């Protein structure tokens, strides 16, 4: 008869091994390593101080020069728009005063490039004869003072019919060019502060493009026809650093038919005048091999803007643009490159957070205590990511206002360079963006550490994909430099740009000037994609290999 033997059971209660416990364990590991905590604090301090120090060196020769109230920045005349932003406001205007409400209707039968043809060095892309953003249409403007409020409906060289107002706003209408075969009928109606832009293909069936509110229009406004053609801007960088930029004034010619008015218009004749600094004053500028443009100028002028009238047909030539001004130099972006010092420290911490365990054999204890390895990696990612985010956020939140203040004191002033506050759209994006990009950089390093298991190799790999592309992007020619900033984790540094860009303004954009090919959060998404991929590979390898 066999006796039943009761197997031994421990009287101890089973420990919890949920994710919360793994997370707590990883947090304890980080918290109790004095060297790591000190390094993280150092990273936060570096993120705060390096940008401030860089801002202190940003002395440039006259970022903005103003003579008799007319200000020039980077070789272009700049006015201040209704919202305090820098604007380009120069065009040819055939106008009359309009008292009270009324409307103006025209048919544009031609819009094309005019004036001297552009002959550029072969390194620049050949410009089209008609600038895509050449504009001709109807304009209602508070006054002929550059920067005053306005609304306009227009045909463009390559972007169809647009309704634009107060410089930064752009509403798309139907596409297609204006030609003799298919004239573009446009109508702009004022009713108080409400302006309505309409367009038609035949002058009978009208479609509304946009109805907008324009603040600051007086009872009597200047209304009429305008033509503008923006400067052709091109920038390239060549091997070895250094940039070459070119800015050439262009001119467009437009034909307006069937001009008809409704409302309280004077009987007098139309007057044509240049608003702002016109094409005839602007020289073609060639800059190159010097840090900040413009440097060196080649004089080349366009024939003067003008208009001719025969019956109800106006033929007008104009140059310039009515658009926001986008500067080339972004001093705040340069300043925030100081966060690279913090980034390097964060890479070291991210890598060591796991390679340190391999070095001491601690990883075996960790995996014995928590055999589900994916969870360990996830817990580590959460801990190092959050701690880095917090450190980066604190550092950047200190760096931002002090850098802004310092740059302001050194002459980087509004309207071109805004003294952004911490809570402004740019302030929030730059500060949170810097913290986020540091956190994801730490995750990349953690993944590299898990894959390579050795600190030196992991740190070198992470620096190689995050920092080295930035080094190469200022040395290589334009195309490969842009490629690097589009497809490597360095794309995320676009979060640190402070220049606002507009779809209706074409500007030279090269990495050498801190201009990234991707929009800020898109660039960040590229870095996140790298991190996700690297962590996935790390998780698979961590599970497969013996520790």
């Amino acid at each position, binding site marked *: 008869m066999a006796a039943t033997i009761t197997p031994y059971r421990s009287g101890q209660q089973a420990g919890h091994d949920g994710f919360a416990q793994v997370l707590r364990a990883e947090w304890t590991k980080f918290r109790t390593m004095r060297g790591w905590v000190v390094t993280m604090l150092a990273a936060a301090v570096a993120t705060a101080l390096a940008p401030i120090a*860089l801002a202190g060196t940003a002395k440039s020769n006259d970022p903005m020069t103003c003579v008799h109230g007319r200000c020039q920045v980077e070789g272009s005349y700049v006015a201040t728009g209704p919202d305090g932003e820098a604007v380009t406001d120069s065009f040819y205007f055939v106008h009359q005063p309009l008292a009270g409400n009324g409307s103006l209707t025209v048919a544009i039968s031609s819009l094309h490039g005019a004036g001297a043809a552009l002959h550029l060095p072969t390194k620049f892309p050949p410009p089209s004869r008609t600038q895509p953003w050449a504009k001709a249409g109807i304009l209602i403007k508070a006054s002929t003072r550059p920067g005053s409020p306005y609304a306009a409906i227009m045909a463009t060289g390559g972007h169809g019919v647009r309704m634009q107002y107060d410089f930064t706003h752009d509403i798309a209408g139907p596409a297609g060019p204006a030609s003799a075969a298919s004239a573009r009928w446009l109508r702009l109606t004022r009713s108080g502060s409400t302006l309505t832009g309409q367009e038609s293909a035949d002058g009978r069936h009208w479609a509304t493009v946009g109805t907008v509110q324009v603040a600051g229009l007086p009872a009597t406004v200047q209304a009429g026809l305008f033509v503008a053609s923006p400067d052709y801007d091109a920038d390239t960088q060549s091997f070895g650093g250094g940039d070459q930029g070119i800015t050439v004034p262009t001119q467009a010619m437009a034909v307006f038919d069937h001009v008809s008015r409704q409302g309280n218009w004077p009987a007098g004749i139309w007057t044509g005048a240049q608003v702002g600094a016109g094409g005839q004053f602007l020289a073609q500028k060639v800059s190159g091999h010097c840090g900040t443009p413009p440097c060196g100028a080649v004089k080349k002028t366009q024939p003067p803007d003008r208009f001719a009238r025969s019956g109800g047909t106006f033929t007008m030539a104009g140059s310039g643009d009515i658009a926001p001004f986008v500067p080339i*130099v972004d001093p705040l972006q*340069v300043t925030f490159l100081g966060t690279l010092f913090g980034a390097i420290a964060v890479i070291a911490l991210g890598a060591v957070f796991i390679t340190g365990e391999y070095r001491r054999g601690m990883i075996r204890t960790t995996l014995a205590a928590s055999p589900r390895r994916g969870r360990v990696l996830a817990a580590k990612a959460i801990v190092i990511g959050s701690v880095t985010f917090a450190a980066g956020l604190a550092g950047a939140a200190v760096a931002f206002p002090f850098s802004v203040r310092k740059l302001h004191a050194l002459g980087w002033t509004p309207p071109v360079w805004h003294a952004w506050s911490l809570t402004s759209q740019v302030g929030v994006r730059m500060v949170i963006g810097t913290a986020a990009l540091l956190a994801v950089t730490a995750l990349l390093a953690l993944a590299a550490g898990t894959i390579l298991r050795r600190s030196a190799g992991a740190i070198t790999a992470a620096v190689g994909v995050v920092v080295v592309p930035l080094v190469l992007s200022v040395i290589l020619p334009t195309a490969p430099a842009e490629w690097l900033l589009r497809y490597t984790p360095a794309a995320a540094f676009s979060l640190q740009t402070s220049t606002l860009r507009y779809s209706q303004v074409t500007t030279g954009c090269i990495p050498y000037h801190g201009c990234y090919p991707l929009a800020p959060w898109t660039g960040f998404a590229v870095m996140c994609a790298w991190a996700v991929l690297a962590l996935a590979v790390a998780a698979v390898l961590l599970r497969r290999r013996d520790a």
Partner: protein
Amino acid sequence: MRHALHAEWTKLRTAPGTVWLLAASIVLTAGASALAAAIVKCPGSCTADTTKVSLTGIMLGQATVATLAVLVMSGEYSTGMIRVTLAAMPRRPALLAAKAAVLSGVVLAVGAIAVGASLLAGRLLEPGNGFTARHGFAALSLAHGPTLRAAAGSVLYLALIALLSLGAATALRDSAAAITVVLGLLYIFPVLGDVVLNPAWQHRIARWAPMNAGLAIQATRNLGTLPIGPWAGLGVLAAWTAVALLAGGLLLRLRDA
């Protein structure tokens, strides 16, 4: 000393990472150089220095050389091997000298292969990209004095980077700390150097940052407009290296292992 050299050579030869890191240095240097030679074209960059273009890879290859050099010293600290080494060889400056000698020998040999391959890639690829006699470019050749100087200087540059890293690792002992300091020193300043808004600071960084100054040795055109001359630039890097090695040597001597 001969025994010390032999011991260090054996350690370096038999460490598992060495071969991989050296191979990576050659592949990265030659690969990135070839890529640069393939994408830099005339027109577009007709003012480019073709020798410098075909040596672009040094900027990447130096990272793995630095990694290897750091591990030569910090590897001993992470495994505790350093105590055995110092017991066998109590003269600590001699130990550092032996490590430096073996490391530079290996890096010079590997650097020569990498630079040779890079120049060969440039010689083969650049004429196809418009860098021809018609635009005033001769095919790369070591018979050309400045090109020979740039090539030999690039090999020396790699050796100096290795010694700088060895010095940093000796002073800091920890591989993570040492590689972080070295890579930060090498790579952050070039990013800032080209874009800081103050020309005076641009000039300063170009003259005194180790990578910016050291790579001046690769220039073969417009030498008069360089912020720092080729040999003077390499001299600046050599000064950084000397400081790192001195600090490392001093700390090695003063501290317990």
